[in-house]
């Protein structure tokens, strides 16, 4: 969406201020549309009443993202790819984090195949209150044998509901894969200059999104995109080529930047499709698995930052999946919303009269880290989340948002009954150790003030030695 004035969207709204969308006015709703925090469907009259059909259509075309959004997969695992509006994240936010598709091949031993598919589809890490995962499997045809490929795709689908990328330049192989997986709306990889006619036919027959692969030739890539669009195929993903090293790597990044710029800054609709990156190519540059995995991560970072909408990857080691997932998360975090939790007293597990009260701040990263460290170790406890304007413990102790008086006042506000506690212990973060004396005075014996470890990851060990208080 290039439109920046809510007024122009307001013109296409019912203008009745009926508030069914949850906003007080249509104008406010229009601002929400600009910020993409509201969706058209949230205005019931506009969608339901026939008299607004024309406005609805106009509005839809105004707010369509500059970079086309393509859906891959079906059901609750369906992925949105592309759909971006900006070049830099601070200009609004990036919306759809690029799915990571980990490869399997049709010549893998069955047990290995199943193990790898399971590893990818169950991989998870807790971060800021949620489980983060990766999301796709890319099935590569190494054998070039349609029957083997079909069997492999079938096995993969028996073991995961993650969306797939079917990878081969051989239309017969792709067709065999589509016969098995077609209804699950996989992405096919890829049409190239040799096979595009057959692959276009497949994309049409099975109604699946298709990758156009024209490495290092943006004129050729655009020609193919235009041709496919003219045939009515617009669920396209572009592969401009990913060189893993040398001068061609520089060219790769420049191509990504130029394609993004053409799409979101110059509104060149005929090339405004999501782009696929292939960090997996790092594995063709070395036999050393650590070197390959590290280089793959580095490529992943480059393309996550500069516009890849989907990626094919190989390393499923923790030293790849963890940093890559976090980097993607950080780049796609919405910079417009502060990452805070509501201040107050929270319960973890089933706390009772023997349970500690842990003090922390309302910075979401801090709060959820502490909460997960407590919960995952089966500890029953209270957490007092203090309003430090969303600043973490270490920084808020340094900056003065966390003080003994504030801790005392926040505790009082919760109406917590210390008299009912058999073990009345208030545990400070190790980084706030210096508050303990003053807090002793403030609480005047109502609760014992204890100093926990510096890192909440060590609370479990700390409990063994120090809880209950003597």
């Amino acid at each position: 969406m290039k439109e920046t004035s809510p007024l122009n969207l307001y013109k296409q709204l019912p203008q009745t201020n009926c508030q069914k969308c949850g906003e007080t006015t249509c104008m406010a709703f229009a601002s929400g549309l600009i910020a993409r925090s509201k969706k058209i469907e949230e205005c019931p009259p506009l969608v339901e009443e026939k008299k607004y059909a024309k406005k609805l259509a106009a509005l839809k075309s105004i707010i369509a993202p500059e970079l086309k959004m393509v859906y891959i997969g079906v059901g609750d695992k369906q992925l949105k790819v592309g759909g971006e509006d900006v070049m830099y994240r601070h200009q609004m936010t990036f919306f759809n984090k690029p799915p990571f598709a980990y490869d399997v091949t049709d010549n893998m031993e069955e047990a290995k195949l199943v193990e790898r598919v399971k590893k990818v589809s169950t991989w998870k890490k807790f971060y800021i209150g949620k489980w983060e995962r990766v999301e796709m499997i890319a099935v590569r045809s190494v054998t070039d044998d349609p029957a083997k490929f079909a069997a492999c795709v079938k096995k993969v689908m028996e073991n995961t509901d993650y969306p797939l990328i079917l990878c081969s330049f051989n239309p017969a192989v792709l067709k065999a894969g589509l016969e098995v997986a077609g209804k699950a709306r996989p992405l096919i990889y890829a049409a190239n200059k040799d096979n595009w006619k057959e692959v276009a036919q497949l994309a049409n027959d099975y109604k699946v999104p298709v990758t156009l692969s024209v490495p290092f030739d943006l004129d050729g890539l655009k020609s193919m995109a235009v041709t496919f669009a003219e045939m009515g195929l617009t669920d396209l993903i572009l592969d401009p080529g990913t060189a893993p090293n040398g001068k061609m790597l520089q060219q790769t990044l420049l191509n990504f930047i130029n394609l993004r710029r053409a799409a979101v800054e110059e509104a060149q609709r005929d090339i405004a499709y999501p782009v696929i990156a292939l960090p997996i190519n790092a594995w063709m540059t070395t036999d050393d698995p650590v070197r390959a995995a590290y280089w793959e991560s580095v490529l992943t970072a480059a393309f996550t930052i500069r516009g890849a909408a989907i990626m094919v990857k190989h390393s499923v080691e923790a030293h790849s999946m963890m940093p890559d997932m976090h980097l993607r998360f950080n780049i796609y975090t919405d910079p417009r919303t502060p990452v805070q939790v509501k201040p107050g007293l929270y319960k973890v597990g089933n706390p009772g009269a023997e349970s500690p009260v842990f003090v922390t701040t309302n910075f979401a990263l801090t709060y959820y880290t502490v909460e997960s460290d407590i919960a995952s170790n089966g500890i029953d406890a209270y957490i007092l989340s203090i309003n430090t304007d969303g600043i973490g413990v270490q920084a808020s102790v340094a900056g003065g948002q966390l003080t003994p008086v504030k801790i005392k006042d926040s505790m009082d506000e919760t109406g917590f009954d210390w008299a009912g506690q058999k073990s009345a212990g208030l545990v400070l973060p190790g980084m706030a150790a210096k508050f303990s004396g003053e807090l002793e005075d403030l609480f005047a014996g109502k609760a014992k003030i204890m100093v926990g470890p510096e890192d909440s990851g060590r609370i479990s060990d700390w409990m063994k030695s120090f809880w209950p208080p003597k």
Partner: protein
Amino acid sequence: MAGKMTLSDLNKTLSEMNVQSLEGVKIEGDIEIELDAGAGGVGPLFAYYFGQEAAKIAMQLINFAKAVGYPVDALMQPVAVAQAVAPAPAGMVAAAAAAEPAFKVAAQLASAKFSVGTDKTWKLPIQEVTVGATKADGGSRGVVRKLGGEKAMAFFPDAPMPNAPKITMDVFDMPIGMAKAVKMHYEDVMGSPAEWAKKAVNKFGADLVTIHLISTDPLLKDTPPQEAVKVVEDVLQAVDVPICIGGSGNPDKDPILLAKAAEAAQGERALIASANLNMDWEMIGKACKDNGHVCLAWTQLEINSQKELNRKLMKVVGLPRESIVMDPTTAALAYGLDFAYTNMERIRLGALKGDDELTFPMSSGTTNAWGVREAWMVRSPNKEDSDWGDRMLRGPIWEIMTGFTLAMAGVDIFMMMHPMAVSYVHEITQSLMGLIEAKTPDTTGWLKMGV
């Protein structure tokens, strides 16, 4: 339906009935009904999607058309109407698809040219800053390092980057606690800053070294400044690359310490780290100016404080532009990298777009990455996390990703520790500048690759 029906009457009636909502159905002058196969989901299937509403309209359309004497049945594709009126039978999707107008593969590829412009809003270049001075310039360094000079965002097509990002490796004036994966590389030199510096340069390829005078911290050894700065001379003797000199972070003592260090290294054009708004920045800035050094202006993830400090160093202290580098603060991967990245990207874009209080090279304290628990903890405190794997491999990549991400935002000099992290950040940044020759494999080869 008595009387004559004109085309405009028809259109009017149709528009009252919202025929526009039937995307892909066009009504032309001679009442020709066109089914646009190009629009997604149209074709006979539209009936399925639009249901009874569409059916009613279609029936009205037929009636109107018949009323004005058009051979409707011959013109209309029967599936569209028939199926719209009837409730969708089982297997209808397949049937409708079969009746869809044939998809036609193009005979040949269209010929199109791709072109895109450059960003015309970028007006100012980043100041080029030289760290280190050779004999000819009054110092004793064998090489100097140039930072900055960009005319575009890092690695963008608009203008080539004149100087590759540089790495200065940390050396401490006393043994300190560090993650196991880092410590193993320095155990043998931990007692001697000079040997440590040599190892960093000769073995690990550091472009510069930073001597951190942390023993001056009142909570550590409280070394007096006069004594602490002797180490600076040792390091200058040991290596011939330019150096950075850091304090302990104590806001009361650092200005005195750094002023002394600036004197001790007079003429060497060291990078003095750092002046901060919460300390006597004026004293530090002045020491840089008087002794010919570069001042590192450090603020905490806040663009306006950065402008304020830069302005003060220029206007109050009178530091020349070519003697300022900024450290807008590095928060590590998964622990605030989003703030650090965006803060730096905005600073760099602001500078390029004409804010001359921000047109300075940027520095990153990338070593912060080692503070992150994922970089050093043996296993996850959260029992349900997937296995965290080998921490000896997790740590270095944490430092690499933190540094490289900020290189993309525009950082020109990195303070780093792990040798492997140093070599990867060098390699990727130089690759993206096209400085590294390598035989590139066939980029479609991965499809059949056997790993």
